[in-house]
């Protein structure tokens, strides 16, 4: 009986917890895509453009965890060659913006009871180029 209950919990956990993990991953990816596109659209070769890009990312209103929680700890980086990424670039001529949402932790309810982790981190990242604005990654 107890073995059966453990198996049932594992199956329920797969459906409930992993289902939420997949949704959170998808929501985070859509958020970073929107944020990266918005940031790239503000890049104009000036330091004010960099600042406007950061402000734009902060204004993206999307949430995760079934649309209920705000994204926190979002990282915005800039690059002019796609290799060297900086949060505060000295050269304002960046043409690409990279947005990372690193800390979306989905709480695990059922899989935890059968030895799974208490939380599952679902990071997402997107890169967009400016002129024309397009997603690169």
């Amino acid at each position: 009986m107890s073995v059966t209950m453990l198996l049932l919990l594992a199956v329920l956990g797969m459906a409930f917890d992993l289902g939420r993990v997949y949704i959170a991953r998808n929501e985070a990816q859509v958020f970073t895509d929107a944020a990266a596109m918005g940031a790239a659209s503000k890049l104009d070769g000036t330091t004010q453009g960099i600042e406007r890009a950061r402000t734009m990312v902060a204004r993206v209103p999307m949430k995760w965890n079934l649309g209920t929680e705000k994204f926190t700890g979002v990282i915005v980086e800039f690059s002019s060659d796609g290799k060297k990424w900086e949060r505060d670039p000295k050269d304002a001529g960046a043409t690409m913006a990279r947005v990372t949402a690193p800390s979306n932790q989905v709480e695990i309810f059922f899989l935890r009871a059968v030895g799974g982790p208490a939380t599952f981190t679902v990071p997402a990242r997107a890169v967009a180029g400016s002129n024309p604005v397009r997603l690169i990654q």
Partner: protein
Amino acid sequence: MRRRGHAMLELAISAGVMVSFLAGTFQFGYAFYVYDQLVTAVGNGGRYAAMRTYRAASAEDVEKARTAIRNMVVYGDPRSGNGAAPAVAHLTPDQVDVEWTKGESGAPEWVAVSIREFPVDAVFAKFTFRGRPGVEFPFVGKYAPSEKEP
């Protein structure tokens, strides 16, 4: 005989628990699966809507744009709609809301794409997603107030 009776009682109790577990598993699993598909669909529509040229020579042009975005959400193709299979079973373009938020100049600043109302029949229970999932993208496309949709 008494032992057999105990076994029957145990089976009856545990079967009730197991069936409700399995029903719950199926319901949540299916609802999450559908929700995930809808997030993907509105995400695709949002990306397209954000980059699409906003032509606003007339209200008809704006409506054409809205239709194209709805088709993108449902069929993954802005021109599609005739017999194509929807990305999410039973999703139709009229269940998708598309709204632009405009700045002082009249140019769109944001575009929101969401599911207005989508009923999910998870066999054991029916429920409806209202106003979600939804996405809001910064508008990064060209603003062409005097252009007409082709």
